[in-house]
């Protein structure tokens, strides 16, 4: 892998992680933007699926450490989502804004589905509402932000000219 690509990817990842802990609490609201999911997805499409799984696992473990319950839930969810994202990217994905938005939307939604189903913290009557209303809304908002980031800083967050995929 090109060292410049590594630096770009790492910078983008760190920026998004920092945004997750600084910008997200500032914005608040009932439908939060998941910057960490964006960071994991954007990083996952740059690396092999195995490395993506490790990135997802470590990111999820960080989130789990500040959660009150379900230590390991986010780690498992992010592992699955990151591996799937990297694998899908290697198989299908082109550097297209619409597809990227769909990719982020599905990635975030998949994370929420896995998380909610594993942790079971949502009351029974609210599971469907959470998975069919709030999670898609949050996923859509996250996808919009992901596309906006790609438009604003494509060299940092884009995947074109990434070494492994060009070979």
């Amino acid at each position: 892998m090109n060292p410049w690509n590594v630096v770009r990817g790492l910078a983008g990842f760190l920026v998004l992680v920092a945004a997750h802990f600084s910008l997200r609490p500032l914005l608040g609201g009932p439908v939060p933007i998941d910057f960490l999911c964006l960071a994991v997805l954007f990083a996952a499409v740059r690396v092999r699926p195995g490395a993506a799984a490790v990135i997802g696992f470590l990111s999820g473990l960080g989130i789990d450490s500040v959660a009150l319950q379900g230590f390991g839930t986010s780690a498992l969810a992010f592992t699955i989502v990151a591996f799937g994202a990297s694998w899908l990217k290697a198989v299908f994905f082109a550097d297209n804004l619409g597809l990227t938005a769909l990719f982020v939307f599905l990635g975030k939604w998949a994370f929420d589905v896995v998380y909610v189903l594993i942790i079971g913290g949502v009351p029974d009557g609210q599971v469907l509402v959470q998975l069919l209303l709030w999670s898609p809304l949050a996923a859509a908002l996250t996808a919009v932000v992901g596309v906006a980031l790609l438009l604003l800083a494509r060299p940092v967050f884009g995947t074109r000219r990434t070494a492994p995929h060009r070979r």
Partner: protein
Amino acid sequence: MPSRNARGSSSRLDTGLLLACCVLSVIALVLPDRMGEPMATIIRRTVLAPLLTVQGQSETVRSAITARDDDLVLRGAAAAQAATAPALAAENDALRRMLGLAGRLRDGFVVAEAFHPAGLTDDFTITIGAGSAVGVHAFTPVVTADGLVGMVETSDPARSVAITWAHPDFGVSAMSADESAFGIVKPHLVSGPERYLLELRGVPFRASLDSGTLIVSSGLGATYPRGISIGTVISEIPTTERWARTYLLKPSVLPSTLSAVVLLLPSRVAGGVSQVWTDVASADSAALAIVAASDSAAKVAALEELAARRAVMRAAADSARADSMIAPLGPAPTVQPPLITPPIRVRPDTPPLRTVPPGVLE
């Protein structure tokens, strides 16, 4: 291009890493809290420490923004309350005048709250918080310090329903305050804002009333005693009747603004209420008394303040005099002016001071 073996080993490595991460996640999931919590604590205190600090600061900023929003909401509420202050002042004024009315009536009446039922068909009725338990029955006159409101139509032990002068069934025998003209006052049954005016019908043609003439109840009939203010003449209404005049009246009372009313019991009706509304000198005796009381309190405060100022000035002058007696040959002592200086009051009718003799500038 990588060989098939290399790709196969990479794929196996990916799968292995995925399985390892999943297994570790599941282990973390099934770990008891007493084992998982120390690991979470280590992560929080090392890798995540700076990020959590930033998160805390962001949440503080967010809280400040939210608190400011709450502050703005509170300010808005305060402004709204300030906006209602005139309404409170008006209500206070009405209650003071009600006190004056109670003082003039002396006995034979009940003071009660008036409620305005919300309903399309109830625009011309009010609910009164007094009923037959205190002697209020049908046909009891309802009045305020300003004049006639209407009469009780139905009465329960604790509540009554009264029709106001705007009700189509309302009618009262009336006369001008100087007793020069008599007629019947009925609501002005037209559409639009004029619906809330009254008509004085059947006034003999020879009796002409000027605009602003006070119309009071005449006491004819058994319901309303003589002398309750009803309204003032606005103008004459042209009608087809050739032998009588009809006048448009401005009502003395606006029922929509009522909060308290006075119900005249039969003993009071029988005793009459003459001079209660028409005697200007006694009209606002209670209100005047209250105002006078507040004025006297303000006067006392002003006198006390004036006395304090004089004391300060006197003390300053005494100390200056004492200093000059102790050191008569020394430099003149500096006398500080009193901290509180009396304001210079100029009567409005006082002519301005002129330093130039008259005629110089002209």
